């Protein structure tokens, strides 16, 4: 039946496509006296070898020139150009552009729980350029990877000023002490005050702001990792973990599907780089990493793979830790693609994950994965459905700010905490999760998993004899600030 449907869909779509009228309306431009029946004539103006600095393009008729003059104004209104550059060599303006807002009254009809509608704002508009990543970096700035321009831009989050910090094809100090050209940037990370840029040849570049500079001037040099060529061509993500805050030194993690490993490099003691001698596979068991979309390291290690967020401790997946299913009646299960947090410390703060399949940002606790809140853009807009990178800055009063890249824009939105509502009798009660005891669990082990004491577990389970745990037994795990959800969805971790 499915094949039948596919076949019919193909046939009908094909028929619809064939019905598209191909004859263009006669345009003023076409009728403006151009006598060029072939593309050779059309492109002759492009064949000059000199750089045209000013003046009007050769080969355009007077009517065309007049029309161009009018359309320059019109196109500027459309925001089609950025500082007069065409799309192939963009320089973003970084001028914040307000978005038309939509009334919360236009929220979709389906019922939600714990839903907040955010109001997205444009921080910087990069036009048609493809932005593939963004990280929060030194100088209270966002660092945006523009794949179209093959450039990494620094966007000042206070002023919106945009400056290039990395471009493909630029000569920069290489690890061997010579100079080499940078490649097309592929991935971004930050660590210890550095912005790390992985280029297409797996060279890892380090951009560090100049001492005392807050305007975006800095120094670019290659990070010395001798065996970076072994990572393969499809590195999915890179990350860091600060191990010495005084020296700002950090581990580097490389998700390398060709190696079926997350390769971990500790820094050399003398700061000379990341010697291959220290290289180690982080995962206890090698795995297919070809679909990994993101990673997060805060002492524990998290991978976003095939829509799921998995916690690892000492290289082993922690199967008991699972982000709770967001409440509500969305038909699609969450498919997470990006993960960030408002607190870099281990087990502290809130995770924010982008569920692009449902166009929402889901917040859950780091400690237990308990649902906190979900955020959507106003109805009718499509934000969060094709997000390519995100980070969160912690704000005052519990309001974090989300920054993300999507559809050629660096966007921001305030993530306000849930509005307190009068709970129904059904949801009054202690904030708990249900946990199913596994064969090798002990009370101490369960307590440590959730950052609790054994005494707290006993207090939460007064009716159970926790001195004699049995596999399959369900126990309550108290969670600060978590509100249980009524209905069929069980947010429990293993119950």
């Amino acid at each position, binding site marked *: 039946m499915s094949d039948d*449907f*596919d076949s019919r869909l193909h046939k*009908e*779509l*094909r028929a*619809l*496509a*064939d*019905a*598209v*009228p*191909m004859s*263009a*309306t006669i*345009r*003023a431009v*076409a009728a403006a006296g*151009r006598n*060029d*029946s*072939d*593309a*050779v*004539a*059309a*492109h002759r103006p*492009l*064949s*000059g*070898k000199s*750089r045209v600095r*000013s003046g009007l*393009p*050769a080969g355009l008729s007077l009517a065309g020139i007049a029309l161009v003059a009018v*359309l*320059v104004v*019109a*196109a500027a*209104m*459309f*925001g*089609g*150009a950025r500082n*007069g*550059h065409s799309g192939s*060599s963009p320089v973003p303006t970084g001028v914040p552009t307000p*978005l038309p807002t939509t009334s919360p009254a236009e929220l979709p009809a389906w019922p939600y729980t714990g839903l907040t509608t955010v109001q997205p704002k444009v921080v910087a*508009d990069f*036009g*048609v350029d*493809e932005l593939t990543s963004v990280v929060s970096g030194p100088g209270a700035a966002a660092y945006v990877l523009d794949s179209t321009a093959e450039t990494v831009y620094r966007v000042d989050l206070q002023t919106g000023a945009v400056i290039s910090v990395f471009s493909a094809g630029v000569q920069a100090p290489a690890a061997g002490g010579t100079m080499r050209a940078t490649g097309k940037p592929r991935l971004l990370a930050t660590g210890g005050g550095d912005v790390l840029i992985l280029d297409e040849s797996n060279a890892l570049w380090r951009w560090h702001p100049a001492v005392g500079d807050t305007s975006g001037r800095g120094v670019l040099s290659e990070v010395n990792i001798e065996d970076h060529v072994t990572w393969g061509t499809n590195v999915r993500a890179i990350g860091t973990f600060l191990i010495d805050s005084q020296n700002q030194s950090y581990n580097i993690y490389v998700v390398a599907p060709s190696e079926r490993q997350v390769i971990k490099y500790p820094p050399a003691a003398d700061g000379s780089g990341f010697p291959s001698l220290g290289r180690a596979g982080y995962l206890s068991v090698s795995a297919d990493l070809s679909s990994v979309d993101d990673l997060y390291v805060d002492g524990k290690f998290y991978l976003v793979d095939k*829509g799921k967020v998995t916690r690892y401790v000492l290289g082993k997946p922690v199967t008991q830790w699972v982000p709770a299913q967001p409440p509500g009646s969305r038909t699609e299960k969450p498919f997470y*693609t990006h993960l960030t947090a408002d607190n870099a410390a281990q087990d502290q703060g809130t995770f924010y994950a982008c569920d*692009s*399949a449902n166009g929402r940002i889901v917040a859950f606790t780091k400690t237990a994965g308990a649902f906190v809140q979900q955020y959507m853009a106003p109805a009718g807009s499509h934000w969060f*459905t*094709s997000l*390519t990178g995100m980070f969160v800055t912690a704000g005052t009063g519990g309001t974090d700010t989300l920054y993300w890249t999507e*559809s*050629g824009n660096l966007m921001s939105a305030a993530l306000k905490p849930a509005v307190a509502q009068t709970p129904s009798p059904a949801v009054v009660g202690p904030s708990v999760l249900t946990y199913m005891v596994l064969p090798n669990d002990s009370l101490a082990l369960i307590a440590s998993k959730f950052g609790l004491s054994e005494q707290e577990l006993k207090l939460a389970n007064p009716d159970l004899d926790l001195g004699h745990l049995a596999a399959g037994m369900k126990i309550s795990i108290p969670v600060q600030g978590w509100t249980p959800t009524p209905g069929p969805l069980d947010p429990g971790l293993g119950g």
Partner: protein
Amino acid sequence: MPSVATLLAPQVLYEVQEVLVEVELVAVTPASVASLDDAFRDHQQWLVQRLALVVGDAEEARDIAQQTFVRAAEKWPFPPEQDVPRWLAVVGLRLALNERRRRRLWGFLEVRETDATWAVDANPDLWRALMSLDPRARAALVLTVLDGYTQDEVAGVLGVARGTVASWISRSRDRLRPILEERVP
């Protein structure tokens, strides 16, 4: 067959001027220009057809296709290993989706009324169902169903996760299924 230049839309002319002023010009040999003309002849029709299904307007689709070929002219000649149809699909769809986004952002700009007589005449139910989908979902559907792209390839074209594409296609098929199955005898 008209050349690229004879179909230049006003907005394209503006971009051509920008190219002339801002970009260091590259010598274009007659052979490569002829190849560009060939590419235009070979690919313009299907590109317009795909874009029309995505943006919902044949006129706009033709404009975007022209912009796409102007972008191609900027980069021409392509390296031998370049998959020209794929490049055109990627750039065309991104231009289309970004044009939609831009119009949405600048709410005061008048959006030209869509003339979809051709589509309504051909298959009104399917057209209405198609237009009820998100433009990116339409793009994903068109690329997979009409052109046989895999979900991974579409994810690459649209710059989203494969799961997102899978979700779009699944929902699109669910939306279109009643339309098509209703007409099964």
